[in-house]
């Protein structure tokens, strides 16, 4: 029994040791914070030693840290303590003992593998000194302080993480914790300043609290037997879950001392997760952040449910129909009512601004359905970006349906399929598709000439099983603005809403059940439909808004950076939990807070935060995840996109010409041009003014160059008048060179609307703005005096 208990502890210890020690250390820190004499910011070296000692204190429970020789003897004491407690518990609650035994047996298997992985990880982890040396080299080489900051940042990060753990545990308001803290504070008053002493004191003092913690531990183990995933979820909710784990952690003392030493080494390094796990975590998280893997859904449950229901109904409809026709050929009234819900317009429109998770929801639903109803439906995905006209879209639909059918019927050659989407006119493809999808022959008969085709089609279709078709139209508004009077949408929606599987014609109609889901970021998309199309649309509009408050927004951003329980089987639960805790702590950092606030206030697009987070996560192998790394470089914002940034890269001559152009625009321009505010002209963008329209401008090269010559003359005169020997006298460049510079301005988009010869154009920046960025005294003076 005892040995089993020890094993349990060992298995836990290898992975959670670091966390627990961090927690203990945090307790110590909180106590320091309470007592006024505590150091506010410990030096990095001290922090490290404190943490490693904290670990030892965990192992040794009460005795102060000493030489390794003493440690081995001490190691046994907590084990015996555990033994005592367990025997006491055995007496009090025999049924609990059973649970514990089972749990121990369960975890025993894990323990060995875990230990191995820890050892493996330790072998690969570079030693602390190596790391430091490397960083010093970098910092020397670069002659900047960034790499030093990385180094310091590790400690700051660890400290912050500890503090946040403290905060969350305090929030939990556990009695035991407060009693602990009291005990520490009271002891703290007596003891000296040595951090190791503090840590020693942090071990639980009162026996009552210990007993309660044992009970909690028991509960926890029972939980772990039931479902490790459950624990994970629970702990995710409360990262600072204080007592039970730390109590378990005491058993590692029973393991050989070498193991404990290794663990302390891991603890002192920056990485809190084993490197092997970390790589997996990193890969998964980066995939999510880059949009290559699907993240967890946050705040989209409602939409998910609706879409899932819609699509599942579509898939199930043929089965229901088959069941109905079998059970009762003369459908009763009630049955027809229930069926009516299946084909009551299988179309929906998902609206929401960009980055709100529309495609994500649809993807999630489709993958869930694929798992649930494999081989029962075909997905057709179109995008308005790729399929730029009706013909392409039609061919794509046909191709995808054929591909889907081939997959389902795996092996059966479908010559007809390839024939269907290649080398056929769009008209015939459409006709075939509509016949296939709607199961009506009326349309083709109306067309008249397609009758023979229809016959063929029916023959071909006889062999194929009826499966449902789900058509997803991404960038829906583009389909609505295509030429050809929304023929495609009309036909698709018409086919989707047409009644099928009715009791009367169920034996004849072999049309698949289908549903059309449009995704659009334009809220006016339903209004863009023509009347005849709109009447065929079910008017089921699912709106996915942006996050309403900043906390929710952060949750969405965080979702992609964290690991879902069971997202990837290879990542251990503990590693995932530790990672998630790290990410959750990022929120407290001021730079991240600023980033999130800024994005929330401007675009509310979580992907912008994701791009930044990905930057930080990419470096996690070498450096800890810290806010500085995440926000160091603003990747999302396009630098140099604004007019003013472009101005700063101009040559002096080009800048002077621009200033002169701005001057002459004020001088000669019409009243409205002169009155226009700075931001008006700065924000005037290209789309609002189509290229080639000349009317709005009032300068051309000749005018600007004339002004340039005028100002240059003044400047040279002033130079001559001053009489001072100027190092570089002002040089007036020829018209030819100025024309080249003018071309640069046009290329940079700072001058707009230069049509042909003599065409007037407008300056994109105002003189006042130019004055703020202009370098050089001369240019600044030109900006000023008018």
């Amino acid at each position, binding site marked *: 029994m005892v040995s089993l208990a020890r094993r349990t502890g060992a298995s836990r210890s290898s992975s959670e040791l670091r966390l627990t020690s961090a927690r203990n250390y945090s307790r110590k820190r909180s106590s320091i914070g309470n007592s006024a004499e505590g150091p506010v910011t410990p030096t990095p070296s001290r922090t490290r030693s404190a943490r490693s000692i904290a670990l030892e204190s965990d192992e040794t429970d009460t005795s102060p840290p000493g030489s390794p020789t003493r440690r081995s003897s001490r190691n046994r004491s907590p084990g015996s303590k555990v033994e005592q407690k367990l025997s006491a518990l055995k007496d009090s609650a025999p049924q609990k003992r059973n649970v514990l035994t089972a749990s121990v047996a369960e975890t025993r298997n894990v323990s060995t593998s875990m230990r191995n992985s820890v050892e493996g990880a330790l072998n690969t982890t570079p030693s602390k000194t190596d790391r430091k040396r*490397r960083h010093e080299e970098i910092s020397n*080489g*670069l002659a900047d302080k960034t790499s030093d900051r990385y180094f310091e940042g590790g400690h700051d990060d660890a400290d912050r993480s500890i503090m946040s753990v403290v905060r969350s545990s305090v929030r939990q308001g556990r009695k035991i914790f407060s009693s602990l803290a009291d005990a520490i504070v009271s002891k703290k008053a007596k003891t000296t300043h040595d951090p190791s002493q503090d840590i020693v004191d942090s071990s639980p003092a009162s026996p009552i609290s210990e007993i309660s913690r044992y009970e909690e531990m028991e509960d926890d183990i029972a939980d772990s037997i039931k479902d490790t995933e459950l624990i994970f979820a629970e702990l995710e909710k409360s990262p600072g879950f204080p007592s039970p784990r730390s109590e378990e952690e005491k058993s590692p003392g029973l393991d050989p001392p070498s193991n404990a030493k290794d663990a302390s080494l891991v603890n002192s390094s920056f990485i809190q997760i084993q490197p092997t796990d970390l790589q997996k975590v990193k*890969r998964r998280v*980066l*995939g999510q952040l*880059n*949009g*290559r*893997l699907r993240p967890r859904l946050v705040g989209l449950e409602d939409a998910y449910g609706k879409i899932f229901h819609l699509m599942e109904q579509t898939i199930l409809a043929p089965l229901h129909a088959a069941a109905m026709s079998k059970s009762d050929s003369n459908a009763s009234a009630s049955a027809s009512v229930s069926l009516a819900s299946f084909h009551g317009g299988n179309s929906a429109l998902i609206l929401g601004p*960009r*980055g709100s998770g529309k495609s994500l929801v649809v993807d999630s639903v489709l993958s869930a359905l694929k798992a649930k109803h494999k081989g029962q439906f075909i997905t057709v995905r179109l995008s308005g*970006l*790729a*399929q*730029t006209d009706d013909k*392409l879209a039609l*061919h*794509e639909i046909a191709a995808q349906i054929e591909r889907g059918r081939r997959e389902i019927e795996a092996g059966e050659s479908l010559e007809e399929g390839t024939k269907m989407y290649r080398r056929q006119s769009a008209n015939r493809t459409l006709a075939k598709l509509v016949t296939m999808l709607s199961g009506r022959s009326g349309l083709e008969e109306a067309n008249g000439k397609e009758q023979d085709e229809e016959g063929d089609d029916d023959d071909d279709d006889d062999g194929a099983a009826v499966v449902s078709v789900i058509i997803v139209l991404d960038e829906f508004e583009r389909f609505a603005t295509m030429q050809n009077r929304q023929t495609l949408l009309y036909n698709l929606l018409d086919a989707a809403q047409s009644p099928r599987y009715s009791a009367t014609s169920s034996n004849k109609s072999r049309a698949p059940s289908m549903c059309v889901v449009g995704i659009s970021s334009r809220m006016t998309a339903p209004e863009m439909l023509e009347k005849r199309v709109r009447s065929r649309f079910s008017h089921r509009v699912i709106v996915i808004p942006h996050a309403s408050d900043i906390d929710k927004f952060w949750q969405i951003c965080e979702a992609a950076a964290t690991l879902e329980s069971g997202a990837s089987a290879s990542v251990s639960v503990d590693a995932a939990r530790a990672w998630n805790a790290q990410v959750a702590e990022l929120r407290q950092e001021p730079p991240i807070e600023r980033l999130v606030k800024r994005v929330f206030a401007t*675009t509310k*697009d979580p*992907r*912008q935060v994701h*791009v930044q987070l*990905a*930057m930080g996560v*990419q470096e996690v192998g070498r450096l800890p995840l810290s806010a500085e790394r995440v926000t160091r470089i603003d*990747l*999302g*914002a*396009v*630098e*140099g*996109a*604004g007019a003013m940034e*472009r101005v*700063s*890269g101009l*040559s*002096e*001559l080009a800048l002077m010409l621009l200033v002169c152009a701005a001057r*002459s625009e004020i*001088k*000669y321009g019409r009243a409205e041009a002169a009155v226009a505010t700075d931001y008006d002209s700065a924000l005037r963008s*290209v789309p609002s003014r189509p290229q080639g329209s000349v009317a709005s401008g*009032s300068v*051309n090269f*000749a*005018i600007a160059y*004339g002004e340039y010559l005028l100002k240059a003359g003044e400047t040279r005169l002033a130079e001559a008048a001053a009489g001072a020997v100027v190092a*570089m006298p002002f*040089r007036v460049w*020829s018209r*030819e*060179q100025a024309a*080249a510079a003018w071309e640069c301005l046009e*290329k940079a*988009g700072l001058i707009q609307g230069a049509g042909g010869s*003599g*065409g007037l154009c407008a300056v994109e920046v105002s003189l006042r703005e130019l004055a703020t960025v202009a370098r050089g005294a001369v240019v600044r003076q030109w900006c000023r005096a008018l």
Partner: protein
Amino acid sequence: MNNACRRKETNAPIFSLKSHMKQLSEENLLGLAREYPARFYQLEQLNILLSSDSVVNPPVLAVTGQVSSGKTVVVKRFLKDTESSYTWISVDECLSIRVVLQRITASLRSLRKRDGEHAAEDHSIACNSFSVFVEQVNVLLSELQLEKAHFVVLDRIDELGEPFDAFYQFITKIGELLNASPLTFILISSTGSDPHKSQTTTYPHIFFPPYTKLETTAILCTESLCRIRTMLPKCANSSIEGLLTDDRLMSLWTTFCQIIVDTYFPLYGPDIAQFKVVIRKSFPKFARPVTDGSVAIPATSKAGWFELYKLHQPLLSSEELIANSLLNKGGVSENGYLDMPILSKYLLCAAYLASYNKPKNDVKLFSRIRESRKRQRNSFHRKFKDKINLRNLAPSAFEYERLLAILKCVVPEHFDSTIDIQTQFATLASLKLVTRPGTNSSTDILESRTKWAVNVAWDVILEISREIKLQMDGYILD
């Protein structure tokens, strides 16, 4: 696919498929940073963002920065040094989006061929739309089964011959359209990047800021010695050649680069490409006094450099080195401005007057009634004070008859009236010195209402008028 594309594919190594890509170590990174001054952060960002694992890479990465700020060279070098597999497509060489798409698919196809599987190339379906492109790439990727990340670099995407807004949008969203692709598209552009001029994007951006003056000098100074020696003119005798040690040559080169940058930085800004052209043109001239032996290369003192600079100051202060055109300036011959008949010169001046004077002022300008003219001119002076100088605007059109009338006033009285004015005018028109404004050039030349406009700038007209001793100032209202 046109021939040009195919030739490019076969000759130039636009793709490279390596077994795996490695992340650059810090030492390598520092080495590269030394090679490319002021580009350490960009290299570091590339190193962080890109790796061999396709899941970890972003689907799209935009590289932006001003012209000649080292985007292409840095990205190319980085991809080479990391031994990654990539496809390099210079979009400016493609005429249309279709060619770009075809090149991408062709390069992916050639990857497949390299794998040893010599499948017959299927060019039957030209990749002429985004839809087909997505389909083809999906098929190719499923055939290729790339394990490692593959980069598709679209260099100078903003210099595509046609509007590329839709293309850019399509490429940035391509991650959603391709299923589980190991591709990462790197978009290199110089003008503000996004055609939508948005400040925020959902994909990472790497910005290459323009070089400063110091950085420009540093970059230009990093030229290999043998390159410099090839540019050096032949030495007059061997003793001078012996004097030109590597150290001295390097100091000569550095001084020269500094002088060039100091002189032309106000003109070119941080445009390295322009500087390189100027340097190539001017270094032989600059070094000639040294190789002739007229100026001794100073070992340490600055006096020698000053002497060299003084020798070349006229050259530097003229614009001879930086002439944009190869033609002789202005086409001035020894016989004066533009070898043309006297009457043609009068015609041209008259045409200018007709273009830049309003018809309503004709009476005041060209009539002999003195009083009215004087009075009017004064009032006009006041009125036009804050108006744009008309000379800077486009010429307005005039009728042929008006030109003839003005010509009569301008031409001296002794002039022979038998000269065929119409032929002269036709010659001017064929020389495009006089044009018919408006786009529809199909209108009948002989039509009575045909209007003309002068196509010669004021400074040229001024030269011509001086040659024929015509006082233009008296006939034009400023």
